[in-house]
């Protein structure tokens, strides 16, 4: 156990040696803490004051106010919660569905591979955002629907990356070894192959988190994301777009928050893949679906 801890702390140290990764991680930690503790902050994201609508940034409202006179800073912070929750949930769904698919397809090959990968093909062939829209249309507009929709569009990423990993690992001798000892295919997949495939999968998860935030924002921008009054960055951009001339801060500030968060996830993901590459000498494959939110 201590060895594992040591390994973890070494990896973290290597990660933090990268200045970009350190800054990104710090930023994400701050954003996460703020989002988690939004309830304790002095500003209220929901309090309207219509007479004070669309005010520019001031001492009372650091980020100004929106069209209903609500504090934009508070809404940006609460929007972080929406974004992070959606991203986390979506990545979890994508992983829970995609990883077993990739494992089974890669490990057994044959008809299972054909069937699963055809399914992935269809998912990939339809632009993700269209797919997400259809899912939301079926489920109705809610945070859960957005989360599921974004999650399902991420399934191919996990399925393909896991499958590729399994294909490259399953002919490696240490996998043959556990098979030679008489281990079941379940053991070989879950206990031997998967732990070795974690690194690229983790990297993929982080990349996907940034894509999920982007896609969630795009859905909100198209008016089918998390419904108001729950603040969400995409929704704020969508509304703020209408007031670009009167109150440019309204769309600019949430946009910056969104971009910085995506950048941080992205930087972190790349730094992680670099560190892992250095440590394992294996190249991290790029994601399949990086074109979300077009």
């Amino acid at each position, binding site marked *: 156990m*201590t*060895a594992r801890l040591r*390994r973890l702390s070494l990896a973290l140290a290597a990660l933090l040696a990268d200045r970009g990764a350190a800054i990104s991680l710090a930023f994400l930690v701050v954003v996460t803490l703020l989002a988690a503790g939004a309830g304790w902050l002095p500003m209220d994201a929901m309090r309207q004051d219509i007479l004070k609508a669309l005010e520019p940034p001031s001492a009372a409202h650091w980020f100004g106010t929106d069209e209903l006179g609500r504090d934009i800073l508070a809404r940006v912070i609460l929007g972080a919660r929406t974004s992070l929750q959606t991203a986390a949930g979506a990545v979890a769904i994508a992983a829970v569905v995609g990883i077993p698919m990739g494992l089974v397809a890669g490990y057994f090959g044959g008809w299972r591979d*054909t069937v699963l990968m055809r399914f992935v093909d269809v998912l990939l062939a339809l632009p993700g955002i269209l797919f997400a829209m259809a899912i939301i249309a079926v489920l109705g507009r809610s945070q859960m629907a957005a989360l599921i929709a974004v999650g399902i569009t991420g399934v191919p990423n996990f399925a393909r990356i896991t499958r590729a990993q399994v294909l490259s690992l399953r002919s*490696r*001798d*240490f996998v*043959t*070894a*556990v*098979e*030679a*000892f*008489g*281990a*079941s295919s379940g*053991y070989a997949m879950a206990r*031997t192959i998967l*732990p*070795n495939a*974690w690194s690229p999968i983790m990297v993929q998860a982080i990349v996907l988190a940034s894509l999920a935030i982007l896609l969630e924002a795009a859905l909100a921008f198209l008016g089918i994301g998390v419904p108001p009054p729950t603040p969400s960055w995409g929704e704020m951009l969508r509304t703020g777009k209408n007031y670009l001339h009167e109150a440019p801060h309204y769309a600019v500030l949430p946009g910056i928050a969104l971009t910085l968060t995506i950048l941080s996830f992205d930087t972190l993901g790349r730094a992680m893949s670099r560190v892992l590459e250095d440590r*394992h000498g294996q190249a991290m494959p790029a994601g399949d679906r990086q074109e979300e939110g077009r």
Partner: protein
Amino acid sequence: MSAPVLSVRGLEVDFAGSGRPVPVIRGVDLDVHPNEILCIVGESGSGKSVTALAATGLLPPTARVRGRVVLDGTDVTGAPPEVLRRLRGEAVGFIFQDPTTTLNPVLPVGRQITEGQVAHGRLRQADAPARAAELLGEVEIADPEGRARQYPHQFSGGMRQRAVIAMAMAGRPRLIIADEPTTALDVTVQAQVLDLLRRRQAETGAAIVLITHDLGVVAEVADRVAVMYGGRIVETGPVDALFARPRHPYTTALLESLPRLDTRGGRLDPIPGQPPLPGALPAGCSFHPRCRLAAGRPRCAAEEPALRPVGAAAAGQAAACHFAEENPRPKPPATVAEAAASAAAAAPLLQIEGLKVHFPLRSRVLRLTRGHVRAVDGVSLTVRAGETVSLVGESGCGKTTTGRAVMGLVPVTGGDIRFEGRSVVGLRRLAMRGVRRHMQYVFQDPFSSLNPVLPVEDVVAEPLRIHGLYDSFGGARYIARLFEMVGLSPTMFGRYPREFSGGQKQRIGIARALALKPRLVILDEPVAALDVSIQAQILNLLQDLQRELGLGYLFIAHNLSVVRQISDRVAVMYLGRVVEESDSDTLYEAPAHPYTQSLLSAVPVPEPAGRTGRGRIVLTGEIPNPAAPPGGCTFHPRCFRATDRCRAEAPAFRPHPGLPSRVACHHAGPPGTGASAERTEEAAP
């Protein structure tokens, strides 16, 4: 003596990584003269390649180079890139180790051969195709015009290396640097390539620096030798003198740790310990912790010895050892044959009869079966308890597949495998699990056979856990015992495989194989990836364990010397079939199958003394595609005894009269006999 083509003085190379710079070359002096072959030998990581790359300024930018390198009259160190570039095209040609990766896969071979010349303006673009064909012709490739237009993947390994030689020679360079040019090739092909290299050198008068870790190759081709250890040259001298009377204890130890084709010894004499890492060199003489002479001598631990002439001045030998004069002559190879017959009486542990494993070849599209790779196509073998049976043959002949079929890892197409009398073919999963407890497998590549994310303790315990026997076998205490048994300290329990050297990893792999107390161990090239000194340690360990535990070994290898060292009986495979099987001594001393004979004659012997007189059968061509084996006897296209009968009729595998061997050949018999032996037998120049 004429001026040296390459002259290196005081070469030092550091690699500046993230931490402190690591000294990799620590003062190397070298001269290479025209028409001379200088071999650089040494274990992995001793700095052979870096020396060669530094000589031509090809090191990556992270390398810091000091010292003076004069190549063909030009000072290389600090030369502007343009000068270096010209030098590379004209004065020096390169041959690298792995012919599969040294050629660009997406460009035609012919273009790659000549493009350097074209870039230097020494060849007009219009003349390039003709010149490429001419060069390919010179390296004895049939249909050079057609081949020049093909891509590397359409060439076999040996042909690729020939093409690389043609490329290196294209500019008629004064110097050729060949970095392990034959390590990736089979012995038969290695013999062809070395032969070609030597002949081309004789024709062009170029100097050759040949880097290798195979002392046999050195003895075959070198004029002079430089032995490297820990980033320095520890001994240098003419090849005969160096082999006859090595002056540095490392050279001596190397020679003694080498298994040899011409002797069957009980135990090898390995060099203890591990080669040093460049970042953590011992103080003083870097060899002293492993040195026989250094024992207890404070000077060795304190002072780095200089390379100084030793022995008769005319001999031109130099060694970097404070006590070079005390270095004993190498022990003559042991010739005692131990009682090998002891096992013969025991009941058979493993019986393989007529085993066939065919892999379907599927088309990319629609995945229709388009044919079969006949990976194993008729293998019969018996292994008894306490006995080592070896399976030898060139790459791709089906050795590994046989081993895997025994373990039930690949589906068997035909034939039978019996373990302790019970057939294991087609057993259901659970029944197979029971059998697997008693058979274990050791893999070739220690780097990939251990799960990188498990601590080594868990790696070794994994088979026990899978079978639910961890506690009943004694848990951690039992694992500790296994560690000690293979010469590792249980204090290493929590470490990960990455933190071990290759030899240590292979020990862990062996410990893991022994965990379930098997009766049969299948060893798939267990020492092929290891340096000679470590190889000897592992071979000894295997022999000790066998004696202690009464194990039966199925030993898979392509190195005939290693096989001779360890085997009781040997089976030679060619293209999926066993073509000859006998006890070890008979097979090596009286081979009956022409393929066995050619294999044995292709093995380089670390004995420069008799090399000019050794008769040698150089096989033409390479092993055919197992998906479309030739008709009749599959060996006939390469066989020097082939007749019409061989083309038409596959020979049966049957006992050879007068020998305890079984052979599959229409014209079996001792070397030198047979229809057309003289035709293809040729003497080295």
